[in-house]
């Protein structure tokens, strides 16, 4: 029995690779039907296999390993291509293969007319393979393999329509920003490797950095500064992959890729790799309160920052992109306060509802002949009833309405944050005891919780703004699209319905309890000690906040707020022309509420996003390299004697230092 269970991991990981190879090498000749079958079936079977493996784990069996092959087995060096199925990787695998399968099915309809259909499926399958390596790998090297692999696939898929220059540039940008992140990740990894004496396996690392080791004093490294440095380096990597401040800029641009790709890679799976990585290494991060506080702060700031930008976007996919950045911020807030279970919980529910929203937006864009501006849509509930209902469910779920998935997970994160703030009597001591952590940063976590609540308000507002403007009000686009929409077929609607169901029931899965076994002892203690005044009041507050957001959106975009001007205009025509004309009321609302937010958001967007990060970070670093290169290369002027001079100068320097 156990043999069979272990080999399930092989099926899960390598079937998608097989699919990628078949489609990539022979896809052109195989024809569409076979490509579709190979592309979807491999992922589908992987999902079923993952279900079996999960059931096995759920029945109380131990986590298990599967050794694919002894990659390096020479002398003292052992690196295996090995996979490990425990509670965390089980959950991630289910999400990746499950959502991945639905998105594959959706793609059949969405990409049906593309000329590079087979190439698309080959890349998508390759992505699944890389992602599964990332989440299932039993050591850092396999994770790195997956980490680079998903980056590469993301790059390939963003620039999928490479004849379009702008889209190729978006791919480039994603690539460069991810490189910057990967600097951090790799440096962190090598530092860890250095101090852990070449250990790369998670389980061995966990015992090296365990709480017992800390108490006995056998930790591989003695000073908290180094541990903090390692954690922060790894976190920089996570920022790149998971689009956190300041490395989030690539994600909105990545929307240039096909919409199912945005759903799969840039919403549900790849961008959560950072959260997964930190959760996987929770034993390490728990040793550095400073790193944890930094993560929480960056997460909360990203959440609010991206949410405010989301308010002013017009492009349906851009709204969802900023929303993704913002939700990822929540997840980082969660891991930063030690609520690892809650974060992964949110990761899962977010995968459901954000994939749903992206696929829904894909259906809308498909129906509207590629139109992405929501102000050129409207009233689409008449055209696309199923898309409308499912999209509504997704919107409710993300807005945090009780009973839907997003509510529970977001609540769990905020609860973790608020609870940590007032916990001072955690019974832990030692050099980096948690009581210090909770004590020093107590007030700060309260602030972060409030920030999270405000971000929740924004989220509810802009998501319902998106929903109302797209599906209600009057149609404002061109007639042709309205008269001849591309109605979504079953291949597109069924994934939507399945995801809608998951967006409702996903919240009832006890993820935090499920994940308890993989957490280190300090992390578990932290979870058990959550309790504060704020956390008791949290639920009513966040429900209120969600309602305010929804009502405000309704009021401004479909409700009386919109009708008010025309009402005045008909009754008091003189006043209409003088004071209460439509624009004035608009101006009033906008001037009082929307405008300031917009201005601030726009300013932030322009200054931070375009100038600081885009200008200095994304273009700056390569620019510095290129400029330095251009300057140095003129030393190389082609004169053979100058080359000889360089050698003699080198010699002289050597003489100077060695004499």
């Amino acid at each position, binding site marked *: 029995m156990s043999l069979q269970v272990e080999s399930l991991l092989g099926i899960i990981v390598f079937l998608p690779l097989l699919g990628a190879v078949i489609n990539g090498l022979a896809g052109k000749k195989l024809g569409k039907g076979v490509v579709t079958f190979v592309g979807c079936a491999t992922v589908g079977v992987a999902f079923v296999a993952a279900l079996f493996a999960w059931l096995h784990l759920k029945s109380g069996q131990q986590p298990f390993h599967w050794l694919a092959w002894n990659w390096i087995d020479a002398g003292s060096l052992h690196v295996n291509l090995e996979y490990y199925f425990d509670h965390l990787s089980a959950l991630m695998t289910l999400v990746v293969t499950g959502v991945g399968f639905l998105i594959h099915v959706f793609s059949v309809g969405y990409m049906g007319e593309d000329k590079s259909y087979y190439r698309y499926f080959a890349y998508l399958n390759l992505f699944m393979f890389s992602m599964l390596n990332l989440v299932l790998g039993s050591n850092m090297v396999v994770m790195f393999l997956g980490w680079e692999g998903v980056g590469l696939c993301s790059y390939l898929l963003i620039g999928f329509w490479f004849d379009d220059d702008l889209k190729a540039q978006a791919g480039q940008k994603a690539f460069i920003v991810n490189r910057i992140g990967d600097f951090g990740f790799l440096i962190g990894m090598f530092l860890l490797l250095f101090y852990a004496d070449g250990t790369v396996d998670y389980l061995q690392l966990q015992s090296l950095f365990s709480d017992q080791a800390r108490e006995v004093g056998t930790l591989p490294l003695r000073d908290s500064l180094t541990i903090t440095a390692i954690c922060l380096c790894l976190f920089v990597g996570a920022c790149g992959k998971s689009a956190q401040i300041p490395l989030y800029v690539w994600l909105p641009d990545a929307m240039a890729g096909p919409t199912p790709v945005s759903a799969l890679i840039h919403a549900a799976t790849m961008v959560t790799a950072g959260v997964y990585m930190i959760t996987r290494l929770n034993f390490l991060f728990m040793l550095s309160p400073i790193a944890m506080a930094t993560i929480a702060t960056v997460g909360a700031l990203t959440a609010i920052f991206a949410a405010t930008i989301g308010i002013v976007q017009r492009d349906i996919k851009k709204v969802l992109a900023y929303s993704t950045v913002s939700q990822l911020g929540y997840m980082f807030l969660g891991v930063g306060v030690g609520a690892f279970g809650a974060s992964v919980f949110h990761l899962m529910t977010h995968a459901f509802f954000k994939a749903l929203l992206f696929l829904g937006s894909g259906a809308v864009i498909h129906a509207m002949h590629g139109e992405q501006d929501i102000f050129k849509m409207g009233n689409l509930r008449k055209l696309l009833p199923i898309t409308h209902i499912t999209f509504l469910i997704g919107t409710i779920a993300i807005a945090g309405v009780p009973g839907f998935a997003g509510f529970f997970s977001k609540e769990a994160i905020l609860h973790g944050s608020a609870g940590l703030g007032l916990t001072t009597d955690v019974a832990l001591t030692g050099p980096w005891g948690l009581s210090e952590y909770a004590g020093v940063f107590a007030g700060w976590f309260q602030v972060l919780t409030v920030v999270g609540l405000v971000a929740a308000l924004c989220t509810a507002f802009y998501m319902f703004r998106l929903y109302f403007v797209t599906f209600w009000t009057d149609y404002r686009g061109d007639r042709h699209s309205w008269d001849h929409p591309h109605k979504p077929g079953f291949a597109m609607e069924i994934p939507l319905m399945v995801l809608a169901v998951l967006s409702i029931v996903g919240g009832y899965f006890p993820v935090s309890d499920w994940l308890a076994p993989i957490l280190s002892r300090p992390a578990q203690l932290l979870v058990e000690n959550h309790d504060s005044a704020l956390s008791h009041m949290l639920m009513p507050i966040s429900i209120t906040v969600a309602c305010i957001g929804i009502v405000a959106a309704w009021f401004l975009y479909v409700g009386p707020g919109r009708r008010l001007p025309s009402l005045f205009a008909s009754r008091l025509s003189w006043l209409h022309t003088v004071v209460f004309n439509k624009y004035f009321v608009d101006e009033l609302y906008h001037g009082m509420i929307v405008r300031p937010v917009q201005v601030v958001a726009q300013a932030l967007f322009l200054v931070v996003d375009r100038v600081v990060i885009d200008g200095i970070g994304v273009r700056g670093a390569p620019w510095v390299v290129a400029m330095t290169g251009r300057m140095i290369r003129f030393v190389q002027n082609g004169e053979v004697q100058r080359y*000889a001079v360089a050698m003699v100068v080198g010699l002289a320097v050597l003489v100077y230092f060695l004499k």
Partner: protein
Amino acid sequence: MSGIPLSWWLTLGTVLFGVGTIGVLTRRNALVVFMSIELMLNAVNLILLAFARQRGDEHGHVLAFFIIAVAAAEAAVGLAIILSVFRHKRSVNLDDVRALKH
């Protein structure tokens, strides 16, 4: 002759080597540069022979012969290359040969 201490020979060799080096760096005529390189090699020969004399064994002499032989082979190839340069450029000035750069 035998009374001249080793350090004098070494100094002379090093000075000759330096002269050769400076010649390589400063002269523009390919043939002169080539001669400067030969000067460097012969400076080394001088140093070797000085060491050999001081030690009273033949190793240094053998070494010097190796160097002379190899220098001859290099000279053959080097002069051929300079000739090719002249065929292309009608000049053996090194400043004229700088198409490959940056």
